[in-house]
């Protein structure tokens, strides 16, 4: 296995309070702090660890998005990726960019770069789609190991422990393959100062979706984005009897 491709998405930082646009067309992103999707950080970490264990020779980070996506790529480079590919998608096209498009882009780059393994986060924390890994595997006709919480080298390929409903599932897969990283796969490192400095000099290639022959016409239309319902205020009850009565009243016990 020589080359690992990692998909990294720039999303609104999870510590930032999300605001819905007044016209309900989406959420406010202007002037809002962004960072790398946390699941993608886990994907980068796993790829870098593979390189450190000499299971991989090169780690390539790919991000699709506007110019600021380069900041996310720099973070991946500072964490230990060797080079980056920025697929520039801006303006209206970016607003309607969907997993199917990203999967096509990742599939095409995987072939062009002769990648042996693609790792992405299991989902992005903004749209929660959880589709990119699966679609990429389908497009490439490669095996997939999604929701990975452990990845080990085995003779013919990889042994992947998957987090599934009710427990863990262990599968063996050949490479090339597509993996999606779950929360417990690893704990991503903080980029260290010397590596942040080095990352500034690592190569970053810019391409467009057109260069890759991927059509970005939207397949899904967002009709409305709304805030979740506001949680109702609680009330203090004077004693246990009242509590039990209230629970019964509400049909909870």
């Amino acid at each position, binding site marked *: 296995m020589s080359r690992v491709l990692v998909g990294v998405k720039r999303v609104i930082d999870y*510590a930032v309070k999300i605001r819905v646009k007044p016209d309900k067309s989406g959420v406010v992103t202007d002037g809002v702090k962004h960072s790398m999707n946390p699941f993608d950080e886990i994907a980068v970490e796993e790829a870098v660890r593979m390189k450190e264990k000499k299971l991989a020779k090169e780690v390539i980070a790919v991000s699709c998005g506007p110019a600021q996506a380069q900041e996310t790529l720099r973070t991946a480079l500072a964490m230990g990726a060797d080079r980056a590919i920025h697929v520039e998608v801006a303006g209206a096209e970016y607003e309607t960019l969907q997993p199917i498009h990203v999967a096509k882009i990742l599939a095409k780059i995987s072939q062009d770069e002769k990648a042996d393994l693609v790792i992405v986060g299991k989902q992005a924390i903004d749209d929660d789609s959880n589709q990119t890994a699966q679609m990429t595997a389908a497009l490439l006709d490669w095996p997939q190991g999604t929701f990975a919480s452990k990845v080990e080298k085995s003779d013919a390929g990889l042994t992947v422990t998957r987090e599934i409903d009710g427990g863990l599932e262990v599968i063996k897969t050949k490479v090339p393959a597509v993996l999606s990283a779950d929360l417990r796969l690893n704990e991503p490192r903080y980029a260290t100062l010397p590596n942040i400095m080095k990352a500034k000099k690592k190569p970053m290639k810019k391409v467009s979706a057109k260069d890759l022959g991927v059509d970005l016409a939207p397949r899904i239309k967002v009709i409305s984005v709304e805030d979740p319902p506001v949680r109702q205020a609680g009330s203090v009850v004077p004693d246990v009897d009242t509590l039990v009565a209230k629970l019964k009243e509400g049909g909870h016990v």
Partner: protein
Amino acid sequence: MIRQFSQILLISLEKHIFINNLKYSTSALPRFSSEKYSIKRKNFGSLHDADLNYFRSLLSADRVITEESDVLPFNIDWIKNCRGQSKVVLKPKTTEEVSQILSYCNSKKLAVCPQGGNTGLVGGSVPVFDEIILHLGLMNKIISLDEISGALVCEAGCILENLDNHVREHNLIMPLDLGAKGSCHIGGNISTNAGGLRLLRYGNLHGSVLGIEAVKADGTIIDCLRTLKKDNTGYHLKHLFIGSEGTLGVVTKVAVHCPALPKAVTLGFFGVNCFENVLELYKSAKSSLGEILSAFEMADNGAISSTVENLKLSNPLGDFPFYVLIESSGSDEGHDNEKLNRFLTKEMETGHIIDGTVTSEPAKMRNIWNIRESIAGAGLVDGYVFKYDVSIPLQNYYDIVLLLRKRLGNKATRVYGYGHVGDGNIHINVTTPEYTKEVYEMLEPYIFEEVAKVRGSISAEHGVGFRKPQFIHYSKDETALHLMHGLKHFMDPNGILNPYKVLPD
């Protein structure tokens, strides 16, 4: 289902906070402060049923708490050091109610212990004997916010973090921030002149507090609640209530100046190999980062290890003798980054920084700050923590930790130091499996003598409270103490406000 349950089960906020704080607790209730420190009750009146009836008629029954188990959390400080024996907690909602309570207590010579979030570290917020606890948690209304001047007016019981969240909506920031922000009250912050993490940038509360409304022991409401930056009309009375720890009056409303919310914030966490280099780094940060430097904190290896080992937090860096946290806050990310990059490149080259990480991502910054802020609570997992908070001239800043380590030897589990280098303020924690008189006597007054030798302060930002009046002379001379006694007598002739605190007998 679970969510519906929790809606009904929501318990009162102060209890909730107490439970949160006690998550570190490992053992039984602390001893009564009066026994632990051999204190004699002063000649105050005792609480009778008639008094309780009066309070119930004044406040309504649910705001007069007398059930022993309900009063207990208000009797104990969160580090399990002090325990009072109060029989009643009063929860006023208005200044008038505070005034009526105090006026009544003054006439009956009933002692009163004002309490905010009860996050203090010197036992100032809990009673010693049976003082009536005056809890201000229900005085939690935000009155006004002037977005142009940044003047926030609110009641004393507002929780600091809630205020910070509120003013952030208007692109402002509270001028102070501290580890206890989720529980502590602004009234308590002001009464104790709390310092914290933003002091380096925004100065202390004597500068940020624009106005105060307070109630004197006899119930008189002192209205100094102006929102002006300049007001040289006579004596600056508001300052009497800043840092006097509830001994001169009860703060009921405050006006605070909130600076503009910085648009660009970057946080760095660095490994440094000796304390001299921490100081070199501080000198360099001041000159290279200038006006964007907003925090310069340090923690020694023991302090960071306590959070890693006791609270299972992950340290983003490897093992280093010292860690430094530097925050920059500015209005232009490009400009700030340029400065920071130059500074960091230089300091990596000089070797003052061995390794480190830098981030502008809010979630990562929060995680790094969390490591620093968790140090205060981490030591409790070892059993008991002796906590000291002193100001020392920077050239002697860390010596005291080394002296204490040598003096205590294997009698302590950990001895570590951390704090606000930029303010010359170090926190020293000594952890032991349990409180012992032997360790206590090895620490006090030794540590205060050492601090006095270098003309430091025995209490930089935590206050004097119950724990330090007998040591205040190490930092205040006789004439100053005489004036303090005079002021106390003038403001509170019966001495009912927060007795056994601040002033030595």
